[in-house]
């Protein structure tokens, strides 16, 4: 394979970020994400960017937001405990509509939990971790190569929609070295910029797509940024009409563009009676399991969302309508399975294969589960 390199997942994240034009990184060390910071400080300066190690994860994301307001494409990376601390500013970035990328390399939890063991326990936190009503864009790669691609995508979505985007993958993907071929270049999308008269600029007046143009501090547009509910001028308001309009717009700008955001992978669903729903590292096991089960003659397929949030209800629903059983495999005690149930809306049986002990779900486990599910069917 030409140009293939043995690259660690965390390194692929860094390379993806740099390819996507990331020029600012702030973070705080935590296993299993630390390599991202260590590599950022090596590569970012040469790419014309700035690196800072902050005093904690709260500060890290605040600093990222500050840099983004100054026009940077900025990111941070962490793991579960740090992700908890970042919720405050994920909310702020959502409300203030500041593009930024947060990488959460998941480990076992809650609390400090299992520092160097994989987990998928943060997927609901990635959706609802910060308080209040808000949209979330969360991407979940399952291979080192996908880490690269989705990191690029995370930046592009963040800029496109002026919102924080979370890239979430587990310890195994973060630490695994895999042969990857990086593309020579990637498409880079930048945040919309205003071009009108600065004196009449309304920082939160949105065009029909719901994403207001965004100048940087220092560009000649003077505006106010706040986490308080605000009006089109960006100034705090408690008016229910204005508050409702803001929250709705921030929500809609994501959900109305779901087709632009959502990405799923399917495998052998055409004649499947059983479909495995898996994501991240479990998607790799599911893939393997499908191949093995097919060898055993079982009609099984797979649906793997690369975009966890907004959740691909429609696509999952279609699969549910088609198969008898949806086997939901995730390394937690049942998080996205609830969403799958909502999507399926009773059209198929939902079976969970759940695990939260720090050990991965293996293809062998899933083959057994498929067999079991099939046995139920027959």
């Amino acid at each position, binding site marked *: 394979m030409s140009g293939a390199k043995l690259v660690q997942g965390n390194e692929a994240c860094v390379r993806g970020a740099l390819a996507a034009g990331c020029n600012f990184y702030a973070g705080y060390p935590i296993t299993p994400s630390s390599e991202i910071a260590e590599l950022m400080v090596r590569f970012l300066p040469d790419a014309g960017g700035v690196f800072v190690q*902050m005093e904690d994860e709260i500060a890290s994301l605040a600093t990222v937001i500050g840099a983004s307001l100054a026009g940077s494409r900025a990111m941070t990376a962490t793991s579960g405990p740090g992700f908890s601390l970042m919720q405050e500013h994920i909310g702020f970035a959502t409300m203030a509509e500041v593009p930024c990328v947060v990488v959460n390399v998941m480990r076992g939890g809650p609390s400090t939990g299992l520092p160097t063991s994989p987990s998928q326990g943060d997927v609901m936190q990635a959706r609802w971790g910060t308080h209040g009503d808000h949209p979330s864009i969360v991407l979940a790669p399952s291979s080192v190569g996908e880490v690269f691609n989705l990191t690029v995508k995370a930046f592009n979505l963040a800029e496109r929609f002026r919102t924080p985007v979370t890239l979430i993958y587990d310890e195994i993907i973060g630490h695994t070295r895999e042969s990857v071929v990086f593309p020579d270049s990637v498409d880079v999308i930048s945040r919309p910029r205003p071009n009108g008269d600065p004196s009449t600029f309304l920082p939160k007046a949105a065009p029909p797509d719901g994403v207001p143009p965004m100048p940087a501090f220092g560009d000649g547009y003077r505006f106010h940024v706040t986490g308080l509910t605000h009006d089109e001028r960006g100034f705090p308001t408690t008016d229910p009409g204005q508050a409702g309009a803001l929250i709705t717009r921030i929500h809609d700008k994501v959900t109305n563009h779901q087709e632009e955001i959502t990405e799923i992978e399917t495998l052998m669903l055409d004649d499947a009676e059983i479909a495995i729903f898996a994501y991240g590292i479990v998607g790799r096991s599911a893939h393997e399991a499908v191949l093995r089960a097919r060898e055993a003659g079982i009609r099984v397929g797979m649906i793997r969302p690369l975009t966890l949030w907004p959740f691909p209800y429609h696509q999952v629903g279609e699969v549910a309508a088609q198969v008898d059983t949806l086997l939901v495999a995730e390394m937690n005690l049942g998080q996205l399975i609830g969403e799958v149930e909502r999507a399926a809306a009773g059209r198929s049986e939902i079976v969970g294969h759940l695990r939260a002990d720090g050990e991965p779900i293996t293809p062998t486990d899933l083959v057994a589960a498929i067999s079991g599910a099939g046995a139920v069917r027959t």
Partner: protein
Amino acid sequence: MTDVRDHLREWAMPHVLCPGCAHGIVLRSFLEAVDEQEIDRNRLAMVAGIGCSSRLVGYVDFCTLHGTHGRAPAFATGLKMARPELHVVVVTGDGDGLAIGANHLIHAARRNIDITVLLLNNSIYGMTGGQAAPTTPTGAVASTTPGGNTEPNFDACKLLIGAGASFVARVLAANPIEMTRVMVEGMTHSGFSFIEVVSDCPEYYGRYNGMGGGADMLTWMAGREVGVTGPLSSKRFVNHVPSSTAPPGMATGIIQREERPVFTGVHGEGSHGP
């Protein structure tokens, strides 16, 4: 003579602060300092956290960031590193900066990033209704210390000196001219500058502790600065003075100033962000 009100977002005025709250005086002095340095408004970013003091940034026609509780120094760090040509000024309060945000404050000081922090110390949490802050003096009454505060309080300037701040000053809201002067010194200082502004909270601290309104508290402040009981204290009668009205003298002016390497983040050679 320019009118500092030109810097205001007039449509947002009057501001939300209570009558007699000296935070507005501080803002005014700051605007004087901006004018004195002839800073381009487009190049001035003010960053604030949460609290009464932090509300100030909403009223000035600069690039303003009203962030989260205590985190202003971190937001400011990002802004400054990403865009070093910006003047970045943090406005924080004593609770915001010294309790929930103390970590960020001391680390910004340690790094010596070239921002200016104005900490408006009114000895209490004003926005939330008068709870005790890390600066509430021992014995003082707050809504969470109805019998008088039993904890010792921070000396913000000493804390920041300990954290390595290369410029530390304390000024009084009662003294706008000195405030402006020190703010200019602090903003032109190369590196992290910290200015504690002794402000007032007539609505809570003043009311709970029987200190009168804003004007009384400004008067009290000036008296505290010169240390009324310092001179003449050995004279007859002074023993009759209740201790609450005989506050200790308090360091004001520029307390610390040193040149240290300025933190700019880890940059590529010849590169300054976007």
